[in-house]
């Protein structure tokens, strides 16, 4: 496996191929297996079909009374999580190697830059195809169990469609990374573009006569293919279009890479330059005012930019959910009043009204995103130790405990800021849209995200005591996916409560409907505090960067 750049890169991807392939495949398997219980009675089946148009913003509701149609609709958004890995991998394949300094060595070999880059891209695309096959095979197995009428080619094409959209956004990340000094900003910008394109695609399903706008989004073309829906199948034109666009972007990215300095960036055209920044000495004086005074303030400065973007995403999503709910409220009122089963499908309870009921089912995405933010920042802690960035800080008279707590406090501050801004945005949005939500419950729903974020962060710090950054991030991400999976799919499968209690989301509850689950929140805080205490106990004793 070390005979070429292609094989070495493919070897590097073996864990993600299996991890993402089996993970997404398991999700499909579970969804198909669970479907009969969702439509156990004719009334339930009718209710699901009736519910579809109200939630068309997730995905186009087609043949919802079939396993494939139901899966395509309900999990249309969730499936796109698979795009995150290609983004990470594409931004890392060239820029990441430059960050590590290994690109210098690689390019000292008698191989041209273009060849090196293309071999890496080829390995990435091979990995995506392998992943697609795994997903397709597992989806086929699930569909066969419930006699969903899904053919093997269509099942594999479902996986291929996911791989294609992954290749598109990955290639976009490859291009973006030619303009950024480091890998992280490229990953952040591309992930942000993914969110923007998802929203642009949604627009035409919510607002009439806006399909022209949605056509600008690659997600629109991804959604044109529905291989799981019987009789609908893939859209070869749309898939070919996405592949062609990805190929063009790869060509562009590789061309830019072949012409720029290693470690440098492609200069943006003058018109795209940001306004002139203050001179170094001016900035130094400004930053020196606060960010260089302590480990806490420095950590806060480092985390400021990602916090801004994550705040934009989380608060924006919160506000957008409120707007969506208003539009679906009238129709759903009728449905909910006429169908107790529908309430069960939406996992509703309490007495918060229709808006709160719908919002409650959507708000699970907000703590999920905040926890994902915590994963990225906790992994930075592990990476800083691994990269030797703690070495000099720990050579100053700062106790190790203080350094760890200062870093954690900065992360805690960021999560609180995100929650407060999200609360402000949703309050303003609900006021503007006339959505009736209990202020106390809304505050509880948003502010109780903070302990969830801190729980993930504390676990990340704890794992970092033993694991390298990549494994720390992997384990945290895996945990997050498993928790979400248990809470998102578990109720539909009537999993026992003991199983559902394994997920942190269980303890988040439905605060928008039922108020703050005080003891569950206390439990989350206690577990987070314990994890942090253990992380601190480990950190003050461990060898640094070994």
């Amino acid at each position, binding site marked *: 496996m070390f005979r070429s750049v292609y094989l070495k890169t493919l070897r590097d991807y073996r864990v993600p191929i299996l991890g993402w392939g089996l993970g997404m495949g398991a999700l499909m398997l579970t969804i198909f297996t669970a479907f009969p219980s969702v439509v156990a009675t004719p009334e339930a089946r009718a209710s699901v079909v009736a519910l579809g148009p109200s939630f068309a913003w997730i995905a186009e509701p087609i043949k919802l009374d079939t396993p494939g149609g139901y899966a395509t609709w309900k999990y249309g958004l969730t499936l796109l999580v698979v795009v995150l890995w290609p983004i990470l991998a594409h931004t890392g394949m060239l820029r990441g190697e430059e960050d590590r300094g290994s690109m210098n060595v690689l390019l000292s070999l008698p191989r041209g830059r273009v060849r090196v880059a293309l071999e890496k891209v080829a390995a990435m695309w091979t990995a995506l195809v392998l992943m697609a096959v795994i997903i397709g095979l597992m989806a086929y197995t699930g569909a066969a169990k419930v006699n969903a009428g899904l053919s093997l080619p269509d099942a594999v094409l479902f996986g291929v469609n996911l791989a294609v959209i992954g290749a598109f956004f990955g290639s976009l990340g490859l291009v973006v990374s030619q303009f950024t000094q480091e890998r992280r900003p490229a990953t952040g910008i591309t992930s942000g573009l993914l969110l923007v394109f998802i929203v642009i695609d949604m627009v035409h399903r919510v607002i009439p006569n806006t399909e022209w706008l949605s056509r600008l989004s690659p997600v629109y073309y991804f959604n044109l293919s529905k291989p799981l829906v019987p009789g609908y199948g893939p859209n070869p034109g749309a898939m070919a279009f996405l592949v062609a666009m990805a190929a063009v972007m790869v060509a562009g990215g590789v061309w830019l890479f072949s012409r720029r300095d290693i470690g440098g960036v492609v200069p943006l055209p003058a018109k795209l330059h940001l306004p002139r920044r203050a001179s170094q000495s001016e900035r130094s004086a400004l930053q020196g005012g606060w960010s260089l005074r302590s480990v806490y303030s420095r950590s806060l400065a480092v985390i400021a930019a990602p916090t801004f973007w994550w705040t934009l995403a989380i608060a924006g999503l919160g506000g957008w959910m409120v707007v969506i709910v208003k539009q679906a409220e009238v129709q759903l009122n009728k449905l909910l009043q006429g169908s107790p089963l529908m309430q069960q499908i939406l996992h509703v309870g309490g007495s918060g009204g229709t808006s709160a009921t719908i919002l409650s089912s959507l708000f699970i995405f907000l703590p999920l995103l905040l926890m994902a933010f915590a994963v990225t920042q906790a992994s930075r802690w592990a990476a800083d130790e691994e990269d030797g960035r703690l070495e000099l800080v720990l*050579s100053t008279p700062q106790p190790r405990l203080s350094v760890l707590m200062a870093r954690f406090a900065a992360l805690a501050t960021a999560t609180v800021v995100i929650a407060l801004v999200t609360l402000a945005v949703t309050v303003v949005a609900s006021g503007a849209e006339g959505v009736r939500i209990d202020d106390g419950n809304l505050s509880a729903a948003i502010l109780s995200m903070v302990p969830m974020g801190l729980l993930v962060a504390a676990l990340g710090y704890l794992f970092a005591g033993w694991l390298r950054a990549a494994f720390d991030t992997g384990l945290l991400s895996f945990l997050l996916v498993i928790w979400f999976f248990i809470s998102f799919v578990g109720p539909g499968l009537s999993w026992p409560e003991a199983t559902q209690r394994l997920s942190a989301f269980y303890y988040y509850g439905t605060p928008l409907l039922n108020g703050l689950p005080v003891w569950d929140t206390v439990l989350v805080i206690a577990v987070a505090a314990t994890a942090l205490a253990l992380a601190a106990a480990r950190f003050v004793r461990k*060898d640094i960067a070994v």
Partner: protein
Amino acid sequence: MTDPIIDVQGLTKSYGGKRGIGGVSFQVAEGEAYGFLGPNGAGKTTTIRVLMALLRADHGTARIAGLDAWNDSVQIKRMVGYLPGELSLDPGLTGQQILEYFGHLRGGVDQAYVAQLVKRFDLDPTRKFRHYSSGNKRKVGLVQAFMHRPRLVVLDEPTSGLDPLNQQEFGRLVAEVRAEGRTVFLSSHILSEVEQTCTRVAIIRDGKIVREGGLAELKDIKLHEVTIAFAEAAPAAAFNAVEGVERVEALPDGKTLRLTVHGGVDAVIKAAAQHPVLAFTTHEPSLDDIFLRYYQTERSPEPVPAHV
């Protein structure tokens, strides 16, 4: 030696059975410049990182100014300046911001002295760390190690990447620090560098101290490789008996000799001057080469007793 500032006794650290250090012992007196020599992977950095409480020793003790390196690390770091072997700092900060940050973490430093150090090393502090060359990164590290006038400066390969002018400046700085009664502990794999800056030296190999003593006591291990190109057939026999010559090798062209010389090369120059010489070059072999010859060719694997 009265009240050594560094007192290491039987220090052992292994990385899960892999190479580390085993039973390292030495003392450094206050006010001296102490060189820690050894080839790559010998255990220099491990020893230093134990002293800086970045690693916890498996066995043995490491004390700085009478304080335990691990248990009293915060107190110790108030009086120590440190330059790691591999410097990794926030790439988005300028040199000035980095110095300001570490100045704050140390509770404040004399800005005039920082500016003086920056000027001495000819460092441009307005550039971002990521844009510095390896030599300039080293300068940032050196300035931050010295800027709070520490009682003890611990430096891991301090001149790695520095140009000759800045190496000289570094040598002068070490001399000044010593003159003020402060202590310098530096590791290196370059014998001549240690010779120029240190008063005492320990040599570590495979995680064990194999020699320790004053510079004069270590002269016997110094080797030069001398290549002499003659205008006519090389007179190899004429060099066999020259003082310090350990080995004479005639190169295939028949007119060039390669000599391995112990100690000074004065006698070799005088002997060569008896013949028509076209070129005379000498270079100091790496420490690894010296070790290889000293411990393998000479077949004297027994460590020489330390001279303290």
